[in-house]
């Protein structure tokens, strides 16, 4: 990890395995990353790459069994979140670490008013009385840009549109002034014009509140506009990690390079034909003993089949898990 301020969240060698009827699935393999105060870390990957499971593992949100967090440390607030009692963990979740989920339609409880759902964490974590909590809830709704906030507190989720519901979710996540906000595909279920509204809101809130954010998405366009640093995941592993500028101008992992080539854009040159990444993303039946991307990789060679590449430090906070050195165009030294 590059130096800088002390990280607010430091994850080392996280491993999560699911027990399924057809054997184990290694969803998260040795994932390490840290989050500095006030920064926005983007996590990119396709479905099944382990990005959501990583975040859920570190907050103990996965049902065990079938999930099994096998190892690693998650340092937050001088505590290892993987080794604390459930009460401490409950205090952290929704308190110092806020969570926004992908689907605003299903993550709000339809039988409670929006006001009650925003007040719940305030009363649980901050010990506010009803009156204080109601006042704060109104403030929060105003903060996320919901007009007529006071009246809307007594509305139910179905009375809000998708974009508005996502704003409510963000208000709930922000209720207790979190140090870290984890947003799991918060705009994926929304239309582009509504997504643009939420992205603007997020940028504004970050400058206002100064919290650190982990933003999970599969959309590289969203990442380009909002992130400071980016972590690319594939097969439950971090394959590349860099500042957002470096990642887009100087991608080092073949998967990142292929991913950037495969997406069409609305400006710039229009490719006559899309570049394709052949094959399918892997299902990790075993802990990786070889490179998970090698079957789809255009620069794979024999070493990739017998050894899993570690994350090579490339300087300036950039690292990539690949035996092939794209800068020299040759394999790295063994």
């Amino acid at each position, binding site marked *: 990890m590059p130096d800088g301020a002390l990280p607010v969240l430091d994850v080392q060698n996280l491993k999560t395995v699911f027990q399924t009827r057809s054997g184990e699935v290694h969803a998260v393999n040795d994932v390490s990353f840290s989050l500095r105060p006030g920064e926005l870390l983007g996590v990119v990957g*396709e479905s099944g790459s382990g990005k959501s499971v990583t975040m859920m593992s570190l907050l103990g949100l996965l049902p065990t069994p079938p999930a099994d967090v096998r190892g690693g440390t998650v340092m937050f607030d001088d505590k290892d979140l993987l080794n604390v009692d459930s009460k401490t963990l409950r205090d952290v979740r929704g308190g110092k670490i806020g969570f926004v989920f992908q689907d605003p339609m299903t993550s709000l409880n339809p039988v409670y008013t929006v006001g009650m759902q925003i007040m719940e964490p305030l009363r649980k974590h901050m010990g506010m009385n009803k009156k204080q909590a109601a006042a704060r809830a109104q403030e929060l709704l105003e903060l996320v840009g919901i007009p007529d906030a006071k009246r809307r507190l007594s509305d139910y989720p179905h009375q809000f549109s998708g974009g508005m519901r996502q704003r409510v979710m963000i208000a709930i996540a922000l209720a207790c002034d979190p140090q870290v906000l984890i947003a799991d595909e918060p705009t994926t279920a929304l*239309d582009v014009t509504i997504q643009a509204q939420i992205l603007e809101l997020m940028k504004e809130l970050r400058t206002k509140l100064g919290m650190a954010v982990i933003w999970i998405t599969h959309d*590289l366009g969203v990442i*380009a506009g909002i992130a400071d640093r980016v972590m690319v995941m594939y097969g439950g592993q971090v394959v590349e990690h860099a500042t*957002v500028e470096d990642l887009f101008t100087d991608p080092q992992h073949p998967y990142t390079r*292929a991913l950037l080539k*495969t997406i069409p854009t*609305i400006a710039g040159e229009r490719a006559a034909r899309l570049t394709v990444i052949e094959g*399918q993303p892997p299902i990790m039946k075993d802990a990786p003993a070889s490179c998970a991307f090698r079957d789809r990789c255009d620069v794979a060679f024999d070493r990739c089949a017998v050894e899993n590449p570690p994350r090579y430090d490339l300087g300036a906070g950039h690292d990539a898990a690949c035996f092939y050195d794209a800068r020299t165009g040759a394999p790295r030294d063994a």
Partner: protein
Amino acid sequence: MLDTEQKPLVSVRDLKMHFPIHAGLLRRRVGEVKAVDGISFDVIEGETLGLVGESGCGKSTCGRAVLRLYDITSGEIMIDGDEIGATSQAQLRTKRPTMQMVFQDPQASLNPRMTVEAIIKEPLDEHTKLSEAEKREKVGELMDAVGLNRQFAKRYPQAFSGGQRQRIGIARALALNPKFIVCDEPIAALDVSIQAQVVNLLEDLQEQFGLTYLFISHDLSMVRHIATRVAVMYLGKIVELAPREALYAEPLHPYTKALLSAVPEPDPSLAKTSERVVLQGDVPSPANPPKGCNFCTRCPSVMDICKTTEPTYFEVQPGRFTACHLYENNNDTAE
């Protein structure tokens, strides 16, 4: 459509698809959702017409209505020389082979109890008199064409990944040698790296079989890649229709402008500098659209006339259509 010598394969005029809203104890009809409210367009033979818009704008309804999967409220639909707007469903059966559909969700549109072979063979059973052996051979050819291994013909859909399932859906649509295929969000449910595979396949098949597509999508960058011309829908109406290059380079309608500027660009340097038009508010309900122009509640360049009079849909420049009061004066002077 204008003076092009290319002939339209599909010609839609003033298509309306309204769904009734029933309420109360007696389920009285209290109103209607105007999902598609008077749209006209042509799809020229061999081209791909992209149909874009946000969820709820009526683009999928439009695609289904054009194939007469609904009994439409009113309008004319001419496909391959036949007027099918008012044809009965029974009579439509004989015309179905020329027009097919690829659905959004490859999970839901394939019967989990049928093998891949049975799924692709079903249209052949229904519409042709081929022998079993001929049908099996045809299924094999179709599987080759969409890049599925023939050996997997006896497997069930759940044994396949999302991208492969979409290939099965495409093979089924191709079985009867159609001319016109409506692709309703065919890549929306797929991962980024798989989307390109399916889009390239659709392009190859278009070339190989001379297909004409109506490509419905909310993904503006993918539509820019695949479409020849693009129609933009908002709240049941087409607000702009133009050749691809023109539409993306110089959008006319304020909604198209806002929509294009909302698409996040995968380029950090561009993303930080470019000015975004962020629309306020949400799309109004199609059961209760605003008076005047449908877009007047969110339009950044709204004028008084927009709140009272509905703009007409007309040809601003050769080949470019829009429905916006901003361009109506230009038209008068031009004529």
